């Protein structure tokens, strides 16, 4: 991912250039969806939150001080929205986390999804982002505001834990 390009696209988007913002969406959508999915463990909710995040981001671009930090900034918006949804779930006591119906055409990955859902947050989020965004560890690090080596280490640990749980 080219940070300078992110910067220029953000600057153009702030001036109302939709095409530039679409480029940003295409670049960050999968990573953000991975984050939302990992936090909510419900694909439909994750899609809704992701879309809401990008729409809000477009409206609030003027609040972004440093254009090169777009990825981190948009991730924070998504995180806040996910936390809101999790809070609402807690209030309504809806346990939808593990009850998601698998996509009819996607095959049955319920065991895998359940095992992923039971991973700790620190492991689950980079793992899901890694597989949904084509193994781009640098982009994940940029979104999560951490180093690439930390992301690699957490993904490896997540895989190991997943292996242990699936082979029990």
């Amino acid at each position, binding site marked *: 991912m080219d940070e300078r390009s992110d910067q220029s696209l953000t600057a153009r988007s702030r001036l109302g250039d939709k095409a530039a913002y679409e480029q940003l969406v295409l670049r960050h959508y999968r990573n953000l969806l991975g984050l939302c999915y990992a936090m909510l463990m419900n*694909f439909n909710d994750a899609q809704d939150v992701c879309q809401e995040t990008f729409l809000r981001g477009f409206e609030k671009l003027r609040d972004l001080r440093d254009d090169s930090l777009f990825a981190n900034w948009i991730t924070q918006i998504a995180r806040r929205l996910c936390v809101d949804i999790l809070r609402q779930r807690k209030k309504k006591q809806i346990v939808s986390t593990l009850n998601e119906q698998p996509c009819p055409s996607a095959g049955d*990955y319920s065991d895998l999804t359940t095992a992923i859902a039971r991973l700790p947050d620190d492991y689950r989020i980079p793992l899901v982002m890694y597989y949904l965004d084509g193994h781009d560890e640098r982009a994940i690090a940029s979104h999560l505001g951490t180093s690439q080596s930390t992301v690699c280490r957490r993904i490896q640990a997540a*895989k190991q834990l997943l292996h242990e749980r699936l082979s029990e």
Partner: protein
Amino acid sequence: MNINPCPNHKTDIEACCCGHLSASQTASLKKHLSECNSCRRYYEALIQQDKQLTAWADSLDSRIQAGQNSLLQQLREKEVHPAPAAQPFRYSYFWNAVAAGLLIAAGFFAARLFQPAVNQEKLFAEWSRAIQPQMEQKLAAAVAQQLRPELVQMRNDLADKMTTQINDSAAQTVALSQAMNAKLIREFADAIQTVQSRDRQLVSDAFSRMEEKRQQDKKQTQKAVTSLAMATGEEIARTRRQLSEVSPVLFDSSNTNQ
């Protein structure tokens, strides 16, 4: 079923599955995998899991694409409200503060500029003539009436305070001196005890040496007595032999009589 790979290769296997090993490290690991059954099984299990996760992610791909397209459509339909390039009122508090400061400064300088002229010398002369003597008299009277008793009271208070402080410091000095004396006495007593114990030790050592010497003397005496006895026995035997040579008959008869 859990697989237990070699502990020193486990991390390498996991890194290899993520593509984080160099070519030489990968070749080395592959060599080990061809020899070690448990490591190979662990590697294959991780690869299998990776494929499963990739397939899971691929199964969501169409839905992701649909969601992305939907978002792009919503964005295209959205009204554009471009943000202003410059934000003049963003720091309005700052500019308000600056304006207030400027107004205050302007008011101050204006007041200085337009203040009425005062003849200070004339004013001082009038004050000296009319008001100063009266004020001095009143001030002196007030000092005499009010301040004097207060000063006396203050002096007494100060004297009391000083006396108290001197007494306190004297008491502290005495206490310190007593403590110091007690400490010195303790040290002196300790020194005496040390010397006494050392003397006792010396006397005890001297007695031990004397006892040792006495034992040695006793042994030597016993030895001398033994050797003397032996020498005496030998001498008697020799004398007896000489006597038997000189007068065998006598000796024999005496032996027979005996």
